[in-house]
């Protein structure tokens, strides 16, 4: 049985159809990449899945139950955690406390939650920063904090919204390794990513969105050479300019 499944998911803002009839399935243990140009509806899809927006139409099922009408915190409790594209740390709380807020979702006792949070902080490589306020972190560190907090909620499915954006190649390589590690730990992952190398390396399967609709779907190797993907990203002329095979 699939872990996450959407049918005909739609959301429009005014006249703009941000997400138009999206069908998505994600099997347990899978890493699914969601790519597409800016404004293709990826982040809106995440907001629908995590309960921050209510869809106009369609259905979302997670672990066999409908998520429609549920608040974001309930969805998180069910085991679906997300990160935000624009990171949202609690600036005046320490890095450790930031992560502890996530851990408290499963472990109400502060002492236990703090211990688990410390382990997660170490795991994402922020151990040296644990006691400092989150406001003082660099962008790369904030991205890892965002990931650590979501991870601390012990999700079954992790929604990662552009965690690589703005990072340099070394930082990306570290993060790719970390996400791979998290996946091997038994967490399924849905990944929005602009960094092609990262998304190709991590994903089992990739869905390409444009104008809120799926335009292509398949394993990374197929998607990389798919004409409609190149079209969506680079414009039509590049497709025609590409040498015939």
């Amino acid at each position, binding site marked *: 049985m699939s872990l996450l499944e959407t049918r005909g998911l739609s959301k429009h803002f005014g006249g703009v159809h941000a997400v138009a009839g999206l069908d998505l399935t994600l099997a347990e243990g899978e890493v699914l990449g969601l790519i597409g140009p800016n404004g293709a509806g990826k982040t809106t899809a995440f907001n629908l899945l995590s*309960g921050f927006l209510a869809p106009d139409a369609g259905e979302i099922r997670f672990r066999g139950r409908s998520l429609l009408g549920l608040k*974001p915190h309930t969805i998180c409790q069910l085991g679906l*955690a*997300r990160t935000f594209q624009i990171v*949202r*740390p609690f600036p005046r*709380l320490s890095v450790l406390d930031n992560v502890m807020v996530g851990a408290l*979702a499963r472990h109400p006792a*502060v002492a236990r939650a703090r211990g688990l949070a410390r382990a997660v902080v170490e795991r994402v490589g922020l151990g040296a920063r644990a006691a400092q306020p989150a406001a003082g972190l660099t962008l790369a560190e904030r991205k890892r904090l965002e990931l650590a907090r979501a991870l601390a909620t012990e999700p079954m499915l992790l929604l990662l919204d552009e965690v690589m954006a703005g990072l340099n190649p070394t930082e990306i390589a570290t993060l790719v390794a970390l996400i791979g590690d998290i996946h091997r730990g038994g967490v399924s992952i849905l990944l929005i990513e602009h960094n092609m190398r990262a998304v190709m390396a991590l994903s089992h399967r990739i869905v390409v969105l444009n104008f809120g609709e799926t335009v292509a779907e398949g394993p990374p190797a197929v998607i990389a050479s798919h004409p409609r993907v190149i079209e969506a990203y680079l414009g039509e002329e590049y497709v025609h300019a590409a040498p015939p095979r």
Partner: protein
Amino acid sequence: MTRWVWAAATVALLAALPLLPSLFGSYAVTLFTLIFFYGFLGQAWNIVGGYAGQLSAGHAAFLGIGAYTAALLSVEKGITPWVGMFVGGALAAVLGTLIGFLGFRFGLRGFYFVLLTVAFAEICRIIASNTDAIGGAVGYYITFTGNPRQFQFQDARVYYYVALVLMLTATGVVAWLERRRFGVYLSAIREDESACEALGVDTFRYKMLAMMLSSFLTGVGGAFYAFYLFSLQPGSVFGIPLSVEIIIRAIVGGAGTVLGPILGSFILSPLAELARHYFAQGGWHGAHLVVYGLLLIAVVLFLPEGAYPRLARLLRRRAPDTA
């Protein structure tokens, strides 16, 4: 090491506070009673305004409800304020629940939430001013009988001790909450509500609980207010200036810290009392509020986290040298 020094200092201070009245003159007892009482009110506000970051500018409403409830129950029904204070607290919590429900369910934040709380406090004031059964705009007066069962004491030191207990209790509650999930969640809600939701925090529920607890404590304080002053005027118990008195202590001392509101009260209550004493005699009404205003501006511009965090850092920096 430093932690032990702190703990010892705190215990010594706590032990000293009950002993002070026997050393002081009556004016100092009054002054400390006010410091403790406003420290208590600031601490109660701190839960929702400081930790949860929901700026309520209408806490006077809770105090007013508690005060009128305890006074009316005592005078009209003969029910002792020792019980009446909890009835008043409960009624204040009912109003707090209503305001919280409306404000949080309808997603009012920042300025909008401030206006909502002000509007409710003013509505309470206008209703009280127009209800003749409770004295209307003239106010409600309690005749002094000196009966301790009705919370009336000849000896001013009793009020000192009651105020001290109120302040220590509220501070104890806050210190305890800060170490628990509830307190951690409130601080996180203050920082970013959406991020909290994404991490499984039922923000509505925790904001409601904070509001209920805060309004309950403030309502309990109302009973003390009524039987310390023996007169209640709608304009002063429900008025915005009283809400400002409460908020400013927490802000100046450090909102969202355990000791901030207490420090704030130690700084401001004597200042307010002296200003009222000297300026009002010279017919200078409002002078202490001008000072408050200037202080609020200064704190926002130069010390946005309040005095306590700054003080704590200064002391901590000193500590390694002395230890």
